[in-house]
């Protein structure tokens, strides 16, 4: 019980520290932190499929990209569209695409799943690249408005302000992360993990494996789409870079470096990739080499990722503390 309370206390402290960022971070760091937030959601949504569902998606950028493009396009073409509707349109479009792809994805597993997700990702990438009239092709899409956030009784909040937009991002991502966290505690979430562990047994127990996977893929697509939408709103520019294979690889790196299979791991991975990536890229042109080498080292020697490293340290600290306290009580 005390451990649970302690965990909640730690989460609250981290949450408050994240919300308080605009007061103690400079503009550059705050912008990086905004990136961390939506990449965290992106990586968490992939982790639902890979960590909890046991399938490696090699095309998760498809949903991120659809979210980004749809938000950008709807802001560009629908006059007076609000911030929240634009965000939701991105997420829902990704969910619709995700649901459609799921019809085919539920039939394959293992390497074939990775290949089919890759094929779908490349298919959408090819469309984004070639359908120049709509997507702008290589040039990308820019110049769409960033509408203010309208809250009843308070009025419009200017989103071009870095701190305001950061808080908006933090709240949106926080809600989405809570949804993802809640999902793995629902019967559906339990069923997802059961499928990863033993699909045959799950089927014998009467679980509809196809339906479970369908929901999993669709929900993960929605979350990735919201992350992509936030990306579009933040960058105010969307190009094929948001949907290409390198984006799909980036999110896998984040997830694995942070800790695949642990709910909080990918968030740590996003934090690591954005800040360490930024720091390294200012030191050396070869920063991606070091990230890649670090990633390989992780896969070879430390498959639990950064999060399990931190958890070891945390348990060790707890034992040390309780040992000290216990000795004092005894004396």
């Amino acid at each position, binding site marked *: 019980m005390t451990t649970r309370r302690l965990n909640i206390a730690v989460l609250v402290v981290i949450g408050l520290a994240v919300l308080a960022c605009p007061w103690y971070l400079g503009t550059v760091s705050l912008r990086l932190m905004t990136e961390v937030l939506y990449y965290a959601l992106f990586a968490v949504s992939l982790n639902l499929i890979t960590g909890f569902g*046991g399938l490696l998606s090699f095309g998760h950028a498809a949903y991120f990209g659809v979210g980004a493009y749809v938000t950008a396009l709807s802001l560009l073409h629908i006059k007076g569209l609000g911030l929240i509707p634009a965000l939701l349109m991105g997420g829902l479009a990704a969910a619709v695409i995700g649901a459609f792809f799921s019809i085919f994805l539920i039939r394959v597993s293992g390497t074939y799943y990775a290949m089919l997700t890759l094929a779908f990702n490349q298919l959408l990438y090819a469309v984004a690249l070639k359908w120049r009239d709509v997507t702008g092709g290589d040039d990308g899409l820019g110049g769409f408005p960033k509408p203010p956030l309208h809250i009843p009784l308070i009025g419009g909040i200017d989103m071009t302000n870095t701190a305001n937009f950061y808080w908006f991002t933090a709240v949106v991502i926080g809600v989405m992360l809570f949804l993802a966290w809640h999902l793995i505690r629902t019967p559906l979430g339990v069923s997802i993990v059961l499928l990863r562990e033993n699909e045959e047994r799950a089927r014998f127990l009467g679980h509809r494996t196809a339906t479970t996977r369908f929901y999993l893929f669709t929900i993960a697509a929605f979350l990735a789409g919201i992350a992509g939408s936030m990306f579009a709103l933040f960058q105010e520019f969307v190009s094929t870079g948001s949907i290409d294979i390198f984006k799909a690889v980036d999110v896998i790196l984040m997830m694995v470096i942070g800790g695949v299979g642990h709910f909080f791991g990918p968030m740590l991975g996003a934090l690591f990739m954005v800040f360490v990536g930024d720091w390294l890229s200012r030191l050396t042109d070869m920063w991606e080499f070091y990230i890649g080498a670090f990633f390989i080292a992780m896969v070879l020697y430390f498959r639990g990722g950064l999060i399990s490293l931190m958890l070891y340290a945390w348990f060790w600290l707890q034992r040390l503390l309780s040992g000290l306290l216990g000795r004092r009580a005894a004396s």
Partner: protein
Amino acid sequence: MAIDLTTILITCLHGLVYGVLIFLVASGLSIVFGMMGVLNLAHASFYMLGAYLGYSVLGITGNFWVSLLLGPLLAAAAGSLTEHFLLRPVHEAGHLFELMLTIGLSLVILELVKWGWGTEPLPVKIPPSLTGSLQILGSTYPLYRLFIFFFGLAVLAALALVLFKTNLGMIVRAAITNPVMVSALGTDTPRVFNMVFALGAGLAGLAGVIAGPIMGIYPGMATVVGMDAFVVVVVGGLGSLLGAVVASFLIGELQSFGVLLFPQFSLILMFFIMAVVLSIKPQGLFGEKG
């Protein structure tokens, strides 16, 4: 644009030449997957590595034929080291981590290439003995492309000969069907795996060296050919050599005619075909494993 018979013929030849090139990359990818169950997402990196190493050897020795020999050999050595020091330790952790490892590997090789040779495209000349062109049915065709085609066919024949007529080939084919049984019968399967992985990397490197003069050497070359090789392997069937041959020429022709007839849609069409095959028959047209 009027499309006459000559254009069709030339386009068809271009497709065959490109088909041979992708086959060299895809065959290794396919056999390695069939044998070890590892989809090597870094496979095209060996194609790129072969091209760059061949370029350096050519720069040092000035002889195309030496680079044609050493480039693939060095790529094969890199493949052998990769298998031994990186893939083998991860094998017990399952295919998820193997896939992840190869992703990291492709990133690292790309960065090493950029670091070693720069990001600018490198100029490679067609070797003097293979410059010029031939007269075919009233039109001219570059000799070097014909060389690629016939050289590739010769490699294909040699590969088929080794795979179907030698003792080693028999072991490889048996290991594709049932690696555990082959190991139980006394074959040192880890060594065979290592050799096959190196062979695959070498074949990809070979494709890189011969493709250099016509397709250019630049850091993005692995992604372009790698994607085509994935499509080929998926369509032909993971683990099937025959499938790789058929699908390579199919994709080669599709790319070639696609650029001529419907440049807007050729890329989309290719991945559409890949998605359709995977959705309907995941094991591919000629694949045996489900």
